[in-house]
């Protein structure tokens, strides 16, 4: 049966060769419009001349994020997908345990209209929501910037303060501790309860755990990805309820189990709303 196996292998090779030839013919037909795929040149950590980012080994930086220039990221922080932290004209420092969520932009101003130098400082355990725009601001520890918020030059968000979603905080506004500011232009809305302040720190911790999972997943090698894909395919058809009805207990393979500390414990207390 060796010769049969060999024959099938050769036929398979012919078919693949034919396929590649057909691909070349098709490209010829497409002419100059044809699609030429290139490797991704996107640089996650990029230096601008002599300013290079300093990222802690425990921090998660998503591959599609861009950390450029003079940026310092502390332990346990996470920079999520699509963020841009551009420390090209000045310095950005992100503390530990902070999360800068997807598609946000952190930029700095060398001098603005008033002529001040504005590095951006983001403290520890800060949560910066999706698509926020932070330009030359100081955000102190355990603050919460809502999603879609725009913070202009010189804004200071104090400890335990909250910027509501979608707000536009004008230049040099100071958001005092324990208050929620929102709207366009941002005005004082209400004070934060102690429960909500505790929630801010808890959410930052939850994000640290979540970041570990994403970091592990994004740094997998090709072989690992393929192995897990095969495992997942195998376990896709197995339904837990059906199995338990039959009295079978199947074990999901270890690679496919998420650590417990990501999903929240089932609590009966209502989680406080993040804004309003």
């Amino acid at each position: 049966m060796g010769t049969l196996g060999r024959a099938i292998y050769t036929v398979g090779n012919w078919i693949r060769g034919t396929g590649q030839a057909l691909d070349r013919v098709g490209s010829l037909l497409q002419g100059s419009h044809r699609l030429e795929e290139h490797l991704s040149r996107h640089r996650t950590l990029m230096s601008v001349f002599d300013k290079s980012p300093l990222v802690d080994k425990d921090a998660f930086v998503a591959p599609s994020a861009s950390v450029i220039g003079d940026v310092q990221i502390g332990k346990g922080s996470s920079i999520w997908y699509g963020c841009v932290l551009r420390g090209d004209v000045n310095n950005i420092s992100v503390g530990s345990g902070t999360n800068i969520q997807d598609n946000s932009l952190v930029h700095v101003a060398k001098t603005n209209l008033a002529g001040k130098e504005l590095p951006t400082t983001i403290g520890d355990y800060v949560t910066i929501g999706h698509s926020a725009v932070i330009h030359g601001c100081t955000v102190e520890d355990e603050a919460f910037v809502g999603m879609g918020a725009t913070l202009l030059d010189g804004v200071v968000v104090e400890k335990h303060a909250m910027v509501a979603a979608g707000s536009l905080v004008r230049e040099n506004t100071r958001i005092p501790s324990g208050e929620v500011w929102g709207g366009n232009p941002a005005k004082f809305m209400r004070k934060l309860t102690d429960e909500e302040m505790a929630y801010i720190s808890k959410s930052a911790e939850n994000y640290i755990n979540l970041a570990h999972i994403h970091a592990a997943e994004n740094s997998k090698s090709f072989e690992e990805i393929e192995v897990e894909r095969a495992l997942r395919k195998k376990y896709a058809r197995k339904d837990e309820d059906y199995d338990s009805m039959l009295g079978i207990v199947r074990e999901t393979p270890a690679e496919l189990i998420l650590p417990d500390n990501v999903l929240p414990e089932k609590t009966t207390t209502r989680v406080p709303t993040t804004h309003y």
Partner: protein
Amino acid sequence: MATSLARISRRCLTPSLSSNLIRRHFAAEAVAVATTTEAPKPKSEVTPSADRAKWDYRGQRQIIPLGQWLPKVAVDAYVAPNVVLAGQVTVWDGSSVWNGAVLRGDLDKITLGFCSNVQERCVVHAAWSSPTGLPAETLIDRYVTVGAYSLLRSCTIEPECIIGQHSILMEGSLVETRSILEAGSVVPPGRRIPSGELWGGNPARFIRTLTNEETLEIPKLAVAINHLSGDYFSEFLPYSTVYREVEKFKKSLGIAV
């Protein structure tokens, strides 16, 4: 010509031994000055890892499985190459996810219904729990157009809606069928946009009811974007041919292919 000139100038300008010593002396002096005048800052130590990848030639993976959850994309749905789908995301038939969007279903489910579209740079996320107490999954039903740069978090969008560009829908909000949200609107948590109405603003307020003609246009917009996404879909081959560039790259570096 230019390269030889550069080479000559580089050789001439490289410092001699003495100027090296002078430079080192100045550097030491500068450091001494800096340390004495700098106020003690309680800065945490950043310990970088030596083998953190600064650049991965693979780029960002489009589909990121987390544990057992694998994002599922329908065969005729167009998902742009720089979109990130992570966790429990299902993109149903005829729908499209445009460039730069991030659909992060790591805490709860995200569903994008039939013939819907999530336009450029949106972020769709699902929180752990919603203030309404209902399941915190993000459900975008059929024929929904989510405009560019929107942020959706744990919301439910019923069939045939239009969400304007740069709008923000917070946890637990519900947009009922055939309603339109104006661009830039912010829907606070747990709010409901009633059926057949036009809302907008920050926070979203009632503007007017929609006429029948406008209501009929809503699914037409979704279908039009579906046709557009067909063009984009046909631009891509079923399997990437980047391996050829990798082989060229490796050959140029002398690595065995």
